[in-house]
């Protein structure tokens, strides 16, 4: 049976363990290095899920490090991440932000796509109800994210096309395109930036949240 | 022969409670596999439980009963040490009988 990566790495002259029965601790950076080796040795491509999905971008690396250290992320680092992520936001190609809320509800309900049991033809869903309450009718909702019920109504959006609503409409689009542009370590997937939802799908979800006719705002 | 059933029987007062866990795929015959082909029906149709050879329960299952069916029932007139036997027959003609002692 194959020796584990851990055994191989510990055998290397990183630390002289000696004959004592006490448990040796390594510096944190050493554990980080061993973890990277373990990741490399343990994961394999399957279906459309390839190991390149584990390459850490700055945002993920910094946020994970803060979590492991048990401390909130440094403010300057957070700001830098947010600025970099904001630059990735692609605004609607035709300047129109809202689609059809009925389609938006379907997208919010669907959790399909991008797993190794899906394929390139699978139409990705938004996974939204996994974390959020959205309409009042749907009682099967998660609590990992805040409730979005009455989203537009609570923000005074009576006409999404009016100048008064511009700021909210743009924030909502930006947040869905790349949540980390507004909160460096947000747990919310970066739907637009990571290619989970396309422009048309995002417009439909925008309508679900902001269209006064959407059940969300009734 | 299919995997054995798990049967437990216990008496309390004048009532015996029998719990049976059957091992069976219980395919209804309406499901399709990944390629779109219908998975053939394969489910338990008849169940009979006997106490000291006398029938105490008869049941007709259909494809709507789930995989690895669990059945619980009570009957009167059993005593500790008596034998309870459960037999099933499925739509392919396969059958399985197992027994337990009333505790």
């Amino acid at each position, binding site marked *: *049976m194959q020796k584990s990566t851990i055994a191989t790495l510990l055998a290397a002259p990183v630390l002289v363990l000696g004959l004592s029965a006490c*448990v040796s601790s390594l510096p944190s950076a050493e554990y980080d290095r061993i973890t990277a080796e373990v990741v490399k040795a343990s994961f394999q491509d399957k279906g459309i899920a390839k*190991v390149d*999905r584990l390459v850490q971008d700055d945002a*993920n690396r910094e946020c994970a490090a803060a979590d492991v250290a048990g401390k909130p992320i440094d403010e300057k680092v957070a700001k830098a991440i947010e600025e970099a992520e904001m630059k990735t936001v692609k605004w609607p190609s035709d300047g129109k932000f809202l689609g059809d809320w009925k389609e938006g509800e379907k997208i919010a309900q669907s959790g399909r796509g991008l*797993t190794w049991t899906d394929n390139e033809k699978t139409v990705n869903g938004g996974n939204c109800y996994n974390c959020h309450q959205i309409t009042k009718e749907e009682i099967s909702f998660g*609590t*990992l994210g805040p409730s979005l019920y009455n989203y537009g109504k609570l923000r005074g959006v009576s006409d999404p096309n009016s100048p008064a609503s511009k700021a909210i409409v743009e924030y909502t689009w930006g947040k869905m395109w790349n949540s980390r542009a507004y909160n460096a370590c947000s747990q919310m997937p970066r739907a637009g930036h990571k290619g989970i939802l396309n422009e048309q799908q995002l417009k439909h979800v925008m309508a679900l949240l902001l269209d006064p006719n959407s059940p969300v705002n009734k | 022969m299919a995997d054995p059933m798990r049967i437990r029987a216990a008496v309390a007062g004048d009532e015996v409670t029998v719990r049976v866990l059957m*091992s069976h795929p219980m395919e209804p015959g309406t499901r399709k596999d990944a390629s779109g082909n219908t998975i053939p029906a394969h489910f338990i149709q008849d169940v009979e439980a006997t106490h000291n050879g006398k029938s105490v329960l008869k049941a007709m299952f259909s494809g709507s009963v789930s995989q690895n069916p669990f059945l619980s029932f009570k009957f009167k007139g059993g005593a500790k040490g008596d034998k309870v036997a459960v037999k099933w027959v499925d739509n392919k003609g396969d059958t399985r009988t197992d027994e337990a002692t009333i505790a």
Partner: protein
Amino acid sequence: MKRHVLALAALTALGQGAAWAQDAAAEGIAKYREMLQDGNPAELFEMKGEELWKQKRGPKNVSLEQCDLGKGPGVLKGAFVELPRFFKDTGRVQDMESRLVTCMETLQGFNAAEIMKTPFGKGEMANLTALATYVATQSKGMRFALPYNTTEEKTMYEVGKRLFYMRGGTHDFSCASCHGQEGKRIRLQDLPDLTKNPGDGIGFAAWPAYRVSNSQMWGMQLRLNDCYRQQRFPEPKFGSDVTIALAVYMGVNAKGAESIVPSIKR
């Protein structure tokens, strides 16, 4: 069950509001889960596992009764709640499933690499799941007490912690995204906080379990495999250090929690 469905429908129809309908739904689901406890099909897997443990099998035609799961050859009681742990003979920290594969190879002559490549639910992998169910059941009601007293185990814990918080995949999920805080749920499924002891019979203390929704027996290896699938990660190899490290992290955090294995899930 039917009564609850009707009650739910009535509540929703009367427009009592999302809060009411949701409490009724949560209560209904809790009652349904309670009813499922009686007659857990996991017992069928446990019985099969016991047979396989005692049967002479493999090229060497030997039973597994001398398998050392950490407390000595053939000692089953209490073994599950002390895993994963370091094993001198393999020089590895191993969980229950990978240790059983070791025994299947060294005692019975099976090919470990072949077993580990076999899909879940098929061939020797299905037998492994039954064996794991049997072994774990021998510790039912006991409390988790991983020895955690070697450098290798300490290293695995630290690696497991880093893996727990590692964000990746298309959705930037980490284990912590769902299991990093208390009192959250995904849709209507409550999520245990795995950064600490989530309580008796919860999280690490609840697997292997029988899943009613797909009629399958799942050990921790399959549970982690499917977590990573839903996180849109690539696949962790069976018994790989990623899976062991996470098990050490969760197992050490769950110190003192009572094992209810084999349990039953929706």
